[in-house]
Structures are given as structure tokens and as C-alpha cells.
């Protein structure tokens, strides 16, 4: 398995096999959770590439999810296209919006960029209130999506949802992993580490930054489309600023800039609140206390991960593997699993990029 592409595909196939086995073994609610996790993986993978590789922050990726979700709802309701086509269009529409935001973003840095994307995340869901006849206002739009007939009437819907969502998530991960290893990914890292140096090396800095936003928005749009069909509803209440912040939190907890980190982060976001609720309710705590335990648990996990593994869970996993003497985990690799610090000092990559661009 010399070729990175073959290796990535191999891992993806392994992931697909695990999802299929789990979805058959586990109950219907766990299938639904797998679908939920896949939605978050899709969105967080896009964000972790944007923030971790190109060095731009976004507090507005929930808004891109909303765009994907509403596009899906409107197309399924009015056009009746096949879901795959709808999914592609949802991704394209979000990507186009991402391009517009990206043009503004390319001129902004740090807190200013955070501010602009925050505004997007807060304001965009309100369009639903401005155009209630088209977008359904506060109560949103119903999304009718039935599973294909060839599965038979007794095939559990949640298992099908888990399969579809996981398939999309895996395709996105494979594409992003390749992108991260390609010239585009190297350009992003160069821009992140030193814009002036990157520009001197012949990289079109603005173009690289806009492209990162486009990719990230497309992923969020796909995630939104999946979310729309698994929850069967799009409503502004589902795309509040809390969602955008949850996505960023997931990326950071998992390990910024790493695709495996996106998976860890999604597992934490989806599973921790459910566990915490189960624990809290089974110990007979009063409602006022019990209902806040999941939020507290979420916070504790965030603090602990940041204290113990500043590189996120994936950083911690790599560290533990290294302790166990599994040298594969050495962060020498240039691809998406490498974290910011070691690759920053990795100068030999530069000449390649120079030769690659222009």
C-alpha cells in the first residue's frame, strides 16, 4: 500500500464495513445516532480543514448547514429530484455562498474574521422569519424523504439513514484527505504558517483562502442536507449560533486540522450529552440539576481535553500510540493527521510548492 490514495480508500472501506456491521447489530436508535455522528463528521471535517489547514476561523458554518438543509427541503418539496442530485445541488449552493463569504474573509484576520462569520451564523437563520411563505417561518419546512423501494418494506429507516449519511461522510473524508495531501493542501498550510513567505513562494494567498472557505461551506452544506432528511424538518431553531459553536468545539476537541479528529469530535458531541443525561436521570437528581449535567459534562470534557491533550483527542491518541512504541504515530507525516507545530518547521515542503504554482 505505497500509494496514499489506496491507503485512504482502504481505511474508508474499513470504516464503511464497520458502519454496516454496527448498524445491523445495534438498535434503531443507535442507527440514528450513527447518522447524526456522520452529519457532524461531514460538517466538522470541512471546518477542521478550514481552521486547521488554512488557518481561518469560522463561527458561521451552522449557517452553511442551514443553506444546505433549506436547499434540500425546497428541492425535495418542489422539484422532486432524486436525493443524490439534491445532495449535489445543496453542496454547490452552499459552496457558492461560501465563495462570497470567502472573498470577504480573505481580507480579514483573527477576531475580525470571527466577527463576520459570527454575524452570518446569527443572522442567516432569520431569513426564515423574513420569508415565512417560502421558508416556513419559525415552524420550518417538513422534509419528506422515503427510503428506496428495493430495500423492502421491513428495512429500518434509521439504518438506511445511517448508511446514506455515513457514505456521504466517508466520501467527504476521502476527498478531503486527498485534497490535504495535494498541492492545494500544501498551499493552505503555507498560507497558514506565513502569508508573506507563501506569497513570495508564488502562492496566490487570497485564492487559497477563498478556496478553503468554499470547501468548508460545501461540506457544511452536505451535512445540512443530511440533517434535513434524517430529522425530516428544517427550522431556524436547529441552526442557531449554538450549532456553529458546537462544530468548532468538536473540531478543537477532536484535534484541529485532523480528519480523525473530526470523527472524535463528532462522537463527543453526539454521545456525551446522551450518556450524561442517562447518568443524571438514573441517579435521581432533581430536574434543575439533572438537566444541566449534560452541559456541564460537555464543558468538563472540553477543559480536560484541552488541559491534557492541547492537540485534541487525536493528538492524545497519537501520543499514547507513541508511548506504546507504535512508531506509525510519529507526526512526521505531511498529511492531514500532522498537527500544526511539527509541520510549521517543515521547510522542505516549500520548494515543491514553488515549483507547483505558476
Amino acid at each position, binding site marked *: 500500500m505505497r500509494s496514499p490514495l489506496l491507503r485512504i480508500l482502504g481505511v474508508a472501506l474499513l470504516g464503511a464495513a464497520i458502519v454496516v456491521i454496527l448498524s445491523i447489530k*445495534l438498535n434503531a436508535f443507535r442507527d440514528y445516532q450513527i447518522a447524526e455522528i456522520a452529519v457532524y463528521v461531514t460538517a466538522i471535517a470541512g471546518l477542521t480543514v478550514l481552521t486547521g489547514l488554512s488557518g481561518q476561523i469560522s463561527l458561521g458554518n451552522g449557517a452553511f448547514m442551514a443553506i444546505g438543509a433549506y436547499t434540500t427541503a425546497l428541492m425535495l418539496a418542489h422539484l422532486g429530484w432524486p436525493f443524490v442530485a439534491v445532495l449535489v445541488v445543496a453542496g454547490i449552493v452552499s459552496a457558492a455562498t461560501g465563495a462570497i463569504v470567502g472573498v470577504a474573509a480573505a481580507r480579514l484576520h483573527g477576531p475580525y474574521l470571527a466577527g463576520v462569520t459570527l454575524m452570518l451564523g446569527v443572522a442567516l437563520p432569520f431569513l426564515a422569519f423574513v420569508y415565512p411563505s417560502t421558508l416556513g417561518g419559525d415552524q420550518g419546512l417538513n422534509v419528506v424523504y422515503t427510503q428506496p423501494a428495493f430495500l423492502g418494506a421491513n428495512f429500518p429507516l434509521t439504518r438506511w439513514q445511517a448508511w446514506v449519511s455515513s457514505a456521504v461522510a466517508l466520501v467527504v473524508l476521502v476527498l478531503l484527505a486527498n485534497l490535504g495531501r495535494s498541492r492545494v493542501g500544501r498551499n493552505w498550510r503555507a498560507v497558514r504558517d506565513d502569508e508573506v513567505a507563501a506569497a513570495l513562494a508564488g502562492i496566490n494567498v487570497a485564492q487559497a483562502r477563498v478556496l478553503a472557505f468554499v470547501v468548508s461551506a460545501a461540506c457544511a452544506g452536505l451535512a445540512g442536507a443530511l440533517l434535513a432528511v434524517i430529522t425530516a424538518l428544517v427550522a431556524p431553531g436547529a441552526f442557531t449560533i449554538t450549532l456553529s459553536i458546537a462544530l468548532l468545539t468538536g473540531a478543537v476537541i477532536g484535534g484541529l486540522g485532523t480528519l480523525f479528529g473530526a470523527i472524535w469530535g463528532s462522537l463527543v458531541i453526539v454521545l456525551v450529552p446522551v450518556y450524561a443525561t442517562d447518568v443524571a436521570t438514573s441517579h435521581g437528581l432533581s430536574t434543575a440539576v439533572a438537566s444541566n449535567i449534560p452541559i456541564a459534562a460537555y464543558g468538563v470534557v472540553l477543559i480536560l481535553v484541552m488541559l491534557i491533550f492541547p492537540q485534541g483527542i487525536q493528538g492524545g491518541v497519537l501520543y499514547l500510540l507513541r508511548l506504546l512504541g507504535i512508531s506509525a504515530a510519529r507526526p512526521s507525516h505531511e498529511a492531514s493527521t500532522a498537527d500544526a507545530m511539527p509541520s510549521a518547521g517543515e521547510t522542505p515542503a516549500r520548494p515543491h510548492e514553488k515549483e507547483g504554482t505558476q
Partner: protein
Amino acid sequence: MKRSRSQRLRVPAIAVIATAALAVAACSSSSSSGSSTGSGSSSSAALTASAPGITATTITIGSHQPLTGPAAPGYSEIAPASAAYFAYVNAHGGVNGRKIVYKYLDDAYNPTTTASVVRQLVLQDNVYAIFDGLGTPTHLAVESFLNAQKVPDVFVASGCDCWNQPATDPETFGWQLDYVREGKILGQYIAQHFAGKKIGYFYQDDEFGMDGVKGLDMEIPKSMVVARQTYVPTNVNIGPAVAALHAAGAQVVVSFSIPAFTALLKLNGLKLGYSPTLVVSNVGSDPITLSGLLEAYAKQGGATVNGNQLTAGIITDGYLPTLGDASNSWIALFKKVHDTYDAKAPFDGNVLYGEAVAYTFVQAMLKAGRNPTRADLVNAINAGLPQGPAVAPYAYSSTDHAGVTGAYIGVINNGVETQEGSVLTTDTSASGAVTTVTATQQAAPASGIPSP
């Protein structure tokens, strides 16, 4: 290449990580198997596990509630109050000997979370029914799922008339007075008592406000309405809307608003020296909540006000007996239950609501039979329920899934709402008249538990 060795080793490493990741997901699967779906015989004496969520000793029901987040203040009291009434029933023999287990999960008023927690309750915890799911956008996210799964979806905590669609959503039932009926009842009162005055509307820009306005417009002549202003619940800057009502010279303002915005309406008006007569929907007029909010907001603005003074004169409506009426047998019952099982919460409108809707559920369960299936519960409600704690009868039939059909007009004074005039009832059509309910409400059963 130096890298190739490490790459070869990476494959098992990645496999280990992937397996570990999914093992985490796998571990989380509590091995709850689907409970048996039994036959629906109701004649046999022995208690059987007749439906998912029903065992010989328990009935497990679930709900989604905003226990945290923006909708939590006030609304988070409802589910514990329902649980308090169920605890009372359980302590007095339960429903046909079965104890009610009420599992309500937090959805933070986010439809995505609602979709998730309700699937957890139905697919994993195998609840018998979803009871009192709170909120319009949140519950809409699960309505079609519950109907597809044939799970009874009873007494949704929202006045949207969207729950009354027995043809497409046969499992779903509303409970509280819907906003269209409420608008008609308030509208008739305004048309009769404020003839010739200029009327302004102030309402939440969603189905809650718009349904209410629909009802108001059926009763109030269009020529009387001089201004229609809306707000969205996430924007507290309602100054321009209040100024517009002021500028239009509205002498009476009808407000379909949640408590926070009723308080803001009042305070913004005071700032402009504008004090129209306020007519506020039931949802936004709980005197205890309002008074607290008024004092808190004024304090934030550096002023001190007396909340009860500011709420004086507000006209509203109620479909449950007034809280302050200690002589009412229903209030006495629910106060007793509250003091025993939910004493930490204030005895306010939310608690009364939670207990009253729980009472209705017990009514329906007793009617559903000794060993009910899920269909038995739906059929029992379709056959109609006797009037309970609400001041007007329920509308339930196989073709009507709306709940309470009427209310009285109330006036707030000294922080207490008092009933004015008799109970009024109507339907949701433009032609249906608002009429007086002549029958007096039956007293609460002495045992506190509905008779089958």
C-alpha cells in the same frame, strides 16, 4: 523512501483507532431489546405487557421539554409538575395498578435535539406514548415520525391548530385551547367592550401570533384595527414597534406574546408615556411571571417598579381555573399535590398546566382499558373524554383532535387574575359564534384521581 516504513505501519495504527472509535459507539448501546407487542385484550383480569412501554406493573411514557436554553424559564416547571401528579396517582394505586414512569428529556427547544431525544425514547426506551411534547417547531420535527411509528402522541404542549389533523396524523392530539379559538374569544370581548376605540395588534411573528390574529380578525371589524406590529422572540429591541402603536393612536393593544415580550411591551410603553389598555393572550399573561420579569427588566435599566402595579388592569383569558381561587376544588387538589410532590417550584400557571395535562392523561389511560394497546389509547380519546380540570369541554372525537374548546375572560389586579363573566366557547371557523357555556364545571373527584 524513509517514509514508507512508517506508512506501512500506519495502516494497523489507523485500524486500531477506527475500531476504538466505533467501539466507543458500540459500548454505548445499552442492550434494550424491543419489548413485546402483546395483544390488546382488555377483558382478562391479569395485568399483562399489552403494548411497548407497558408491563404488569408500569406504564412508561416519554416527553421532550425545554429544561435548558431560552425557553426553559417557566416552561421547565411543567414536566416536574406533571411528574408530581403522576407520583400522586402512583401513591394512590396507580392506573389500574400500574405505576406511571414519566421520562422527559431536555431538547433545549432545538428541533434537531427533539428529533434525537424522541427517537431515543421511542426506539430505545420503548415508551408507550409521547406525552405533552412542548413547543411548535420542536414537536413538528417528530410529529410525522411518531405517526409513522404508530406511537400515541398525546396532548402536545402548544396551541398550534396543526395538531388537529386526524386524517393525516391520527396519533397526534392537542390539549390546550388553540390560539385561533383564543383569538376569537378575546376578539369578541374587545369588539363588545371597546367599540369605537382604536385597536392595535402586537404579536409574535410565527404561527402562535398569526393564529391568534386570525381569531381576532374574525371578531374585530378591520376598521377598528389601526396598527399591526410584530416581534421575533430573539430580538428584544421592540421600541420601534411600540412607537408605531403609539403613533397610530392605538387605545387598546392586543398582545399575542410570550411573558418576556409582554413585559417589554409594557416597559417600552412607559418610556414613551404610553399606557394603552392591554389585552394579553393566556401564554403571555401569568401575573407571577410577568411581575417578576417587569421588576427584573426595570432593574437592569436602573429603575425600580412595582410589578403588580404595572400588571394591574391587564385583560386576558384562562382555560384552567384561576390560581388564586382557593375555593375551587381543582385548584385545591393541584395545590395539595404540588405541596406534597413539587414543593420547591412556585405554584404558578406552568405548574397548574403540568398537573392538569397529567390529569387528562390519566383520564385517557383509565378509559383505554385494563391491558391497553397503543391503539386503545388513541381510540379512547377519539371516543371523547369527560370534561376535566379545564373550564370548557374537550373537542376530542375521531374527526377532531383539538383539546379544550373555551375560556373565560380574566382581569389582573394586585398580581391575581380574577374571572370576569362566564366561560365562552367557540370553534375555529370564521362563521362559528362565540357562545356562553351554560353547564357548570364539575368539581374535582375527592380522591384526586379521575374515575374510569
